[in-house]
């Protein structure tokens, strides 16, 4: 059989598909980060923790809420959680923004990063304290359990993973459309640069900023729910991911919406291939790419040069 570097074409196709799945998580998380960075000038270090929180809330909804209120049979199912959790997270984001982040806008990026870093520690610590480190498992919804056996071409694809790719692509691209192709988008970009002035032109910038943060956090929550059935729901699931997602945002170009989506997907693929051909390096490949990109294109692949 025809083989390339010890791997069959079918195998390669499967690997690319799997890479794409990871890429969708990168895309959806880095999209949230990019929106927040773009508008608030804050590097939202707690993004990972908020993703974790999304997964945990979904799990709590499914298995715990009923008991809390004395109706052991009551539970919030996956589909419901997929809508509810992002909303809850957005509300949480709104509170954070109104009470804390708001005070940091006039300062260096650094402070936002430190504050959200602190928040991440608190959130992570709480879940660790309540639910331990090993985490909890969350079953995929009935509808999406099982695999799509494409054995003729040697690929077995879990239905759920396919759903993840579709769901996140839809969310990513509709977000992109709203931001880049509508008036709202130019407000967002202008607001990034000079929020005070934009206000003087009659735009409710504080509200816009709050909503943007809430939306970003909501996206993290959404990604959390999507991830819950794949990965163990555990307090560290986000912090392991977040550094990589930062790199994605930087490679894509900080604040560039399309950049973060495409780079997220592409890096998922590249990382997947690295895992096949040189697995030891899969942890570092993204950083190598980041260094190269920044040296060649300082503003990132899709970033605007200042």
């Amino acid at each position, binding site marked *: 059989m025809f083989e390339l570097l010890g791997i069959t074409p079918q195998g390669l196709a499967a690997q690319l598909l799997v890479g794409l799945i990871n890429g969708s998580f990168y895309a959806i998380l880095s999209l949230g980060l990019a929106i927040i960075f773009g508008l608030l000038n804050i590097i939202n270090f707690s993004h990972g923790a908020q993703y974790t929180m999304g997964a945990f809330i979904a799990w709590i909804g499914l298995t715990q809420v009923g008991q809390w209120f004395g109706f052991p049979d009551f539970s919030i199912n996956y589909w419901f959680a997929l809508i509810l959790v992002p909303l809850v997270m957005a509300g949480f984001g709104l509170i954070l923004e109104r009470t804390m982040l708001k005070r940091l806008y006039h300062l260096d990026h650094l402070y936002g990063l430190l504050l959200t870093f602190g928040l991440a*520690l608190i959130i992570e610590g709480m879940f660790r304290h309540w639910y331990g480190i090993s985490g909890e498992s969350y079953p995929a919804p009935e509808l999406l359990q099982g695999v799509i056996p494409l054995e003729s071409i040697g690929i077995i694809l879990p239905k759920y993973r396919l759903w993840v790719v579709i769901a996140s692509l839809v969310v990513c691209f509709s977000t992109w459309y709203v931001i880049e192709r509508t008036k709202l988008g130019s407000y967002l970009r202008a607001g990034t640069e000079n929020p005070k002035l934009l206000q003087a032109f009659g735009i409710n910038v504080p509200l816009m900023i709050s909503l943007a943060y809430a939306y970003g956090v909501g996206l993290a929550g959404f990604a959390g729910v999507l991830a819950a059935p794949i990965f163990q729901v555990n307090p560290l699931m986000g912090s392991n991911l977040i550094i990589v997602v930062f790199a994605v945002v930087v490679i894509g170009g900080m604040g560039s919406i399309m950049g973060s989506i495409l780079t997220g997907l592409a890096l998922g693929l590249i990382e997947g291939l690295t895992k096949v051909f040189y697995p030891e390096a899969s*942890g570092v490949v993204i950083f190598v790419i980041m260094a190269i990109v920044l040296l060649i294109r300082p503003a990132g692949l899709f970033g605007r040069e200042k």
Partner: protein
Amino acid sequence: MSLKIKLLYGILVLIALLLPFQDFIYLVFAMKVLCFALFACAFNLLLGFTGLLSFGHAAFFGTAAYITAYFCKEAGLSPELGVVLGVLGSGILGFLIGSLAIRRQGIYFAMVTLALSQMVYFLAVQLPFTGGEDGIQGVPRGMLFGLIDLKDDVSMYYFVLAIFLLGFALIVRTVHSPFGQVLKAIRENEPRAVSLGYDVDRFKLMSFVISAALSGLAGSMKSLVFQLATLTDVHWHMSGEVVLMTLLGGMGTILGPVVGAGIVVGLQNYLANIGSWSTIATGFIFVVCVLAFRRGVVGEITHFFKSKS
């Protein structure tokens, strides 16, 4: 330097000198604080006085730690030579990373340094001589200049203290030197400095290399004090920690990083036993600091006295 400040420094040095004559503070703890204080000061030279936020300083700290540990253990080198090699190594690494990174600014500079230091981390995991996850353990402290046995914590302490004071003095001197003056000008208005004929990149690079080498000095000392070098030393958490120390103490202040290092190391030590609560507590401290004490401890104190007078 005003008289008052000289007096303050005098008292601090005196306290440091007398430290071994008590039982309350554990000497190894004090040495750890000194190592990290030096590290934070070196970092602050870059952040506070050159305006460059590096998110990859662990690379220098860790590289020197590994080099010193390796040569002292495997080649049986004396501690002073081990330290010199460590500093040299991190200085060269600083030159390499710096030459790439200083071409970028702001948040991108931070990210390039992070990326490059992740590669150093990767190398540390993969190269055989670092001992992977186990690190290099059981590094002998050896005989300083072939004379003083550093196995004894007290002599080791004085060695660390001397190195710290040397490094600290060098940093203070650098900040106020002609070189430091140009750095300050660059930080304030880079294009203007260029138009005055200063080759800005060379200044930034130089400052980067000095900072890297001194961070390396701190790392080398640390590996002797604890007699081990591990992945923790090159991990990005370490880079984050030094940012925290500097910020908490007050960036751009001379003494701030020292205080910050003291607080952070102390917290780590005393919060260590409460498990997940310690994470929560650290997070809480971050949040409170950023919201309420932004100038850092030393910065707030100076500000208080300034606004009173």
